[in-house]
């Protein structure tokens, strides 16, 4: 590991538990590089995760780290951020953790616009439990619980977050790792709720079942199916059918909840915020 990244890792806990070729390590690497580039204030940063493969990342990052219960990372993070509005809070979660069992917290944290940077490790599957379909498993895909193909329609997480009021929404892939690092920096710097969906590969429990080949082939799939907003605007619906859009897809300014609350407290206490 490069020396510049070492301050951000608990090196004694590596190698991580993720399977060979799992994209999660690439996301965690991109996060560490983003933090190194922005010279993040470690002491003032907490990293909070849920349960699942993605959420094991907190164990490897040398920060105040909180590995919560399944789906609840954003709920814990909300309480923490309310008390420490000055701190940076990064939430690491997966597609099942964030959009199924934690779906209610996702839409409400977006609605409140709480200043949390949420990175969703989207591998389209419940990896830790052995490959069951999630709300982000594409329609038609195979999983251990959709052996004949997934009949459910999958969420478009970007549209979901937008509908719920997220003020920063981006999507990238582990193939586009430079773009990903850049988006993480932008997300952390954004004041308000930021959501970064990262398309990543689970070669063990998703790729194998859906005949997507090696980890590298799964990353080439990402390369071939990701389009920018500008490209998408010139494409027909038919051409866009199996594509997904990457980049910074939405950003707006809106009042941030914990800051608003702190202001209310200051007013009620006569301007003496003690």
């Amino acid at each position, binding site marked *: 590991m490069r020396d510049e990244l070492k301050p951000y890792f608990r090196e004694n806990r590596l190698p991580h538990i993720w399977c060979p*070729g799992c994209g*999660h390590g690439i996301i965690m690497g991109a996060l560490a590089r983003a933090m190194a580039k922005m010279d993040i204030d470690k002491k003032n940063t907490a990293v909070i995760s849920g349960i699942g493969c993605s959420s094991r990342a907190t164990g490897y990052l040398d920060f105040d780290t909180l590995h919560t219960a399944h789906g609840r990372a954003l709920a814990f993070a909300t309480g923490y951020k309310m008390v420490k509005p000055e701190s940076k809070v990064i939430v690491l979660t997966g597609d099942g953790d964030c959009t199924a069992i934690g779906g209610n917290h996702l839409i409400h944290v977006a609605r409140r616009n709480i200043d949390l940077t949420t990175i969703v490790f989207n591998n389209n599957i419940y990896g830790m439990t052995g490959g069951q379909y999630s709300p982000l498993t594409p329609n038609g895909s195979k999983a251990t619980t959709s052996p004949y193909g997934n009949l459910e329609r999958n969420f478009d997480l970007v549209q979901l977050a937008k509908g719920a009021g997220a003020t920063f929404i981006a999507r990238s892939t582990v193939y586009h790792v430079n773009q990903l690092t850049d988006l993480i920096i932008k997300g952390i710097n954004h004041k308000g709720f930021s959501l970064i969906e990262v398309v990543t590969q689970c070669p063990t429990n998703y790729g194998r079942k859906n005949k997507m080949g090696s980890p590298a082939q799964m990353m080439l799939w990402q390369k071939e199916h990701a389009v920018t907003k500008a490209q998408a605007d010139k494409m027909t619906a038919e051409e866009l059918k199996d594509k997904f859009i990457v980049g910074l897809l939405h950003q707006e300014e809106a009042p941030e909840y914990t800051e608003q609350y702190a202001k209310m407290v200051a007013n009620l206490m006569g301007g003496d915020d003690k």
Partner: protein
Amino acid sequence: MVIIDQKLCKGCGICVSLCPKQALALNEVNKSYYAHPDVCIHCGMCELWCPDYAIIVERESKE
């Protein structure tokens, strides 16, 4: 120069397959190694793509 930490490498083959110049290969124990330094352009992508932080690309150094 590409340095590959054999302890961290899990042999997933991402760096080998995605290297634009095929500078890397897997050895007999399924670990990545710097097989063809002559073709390497030091683009650094293998380092960024390595899920296990096993690779460091040194751009300045010359063999």
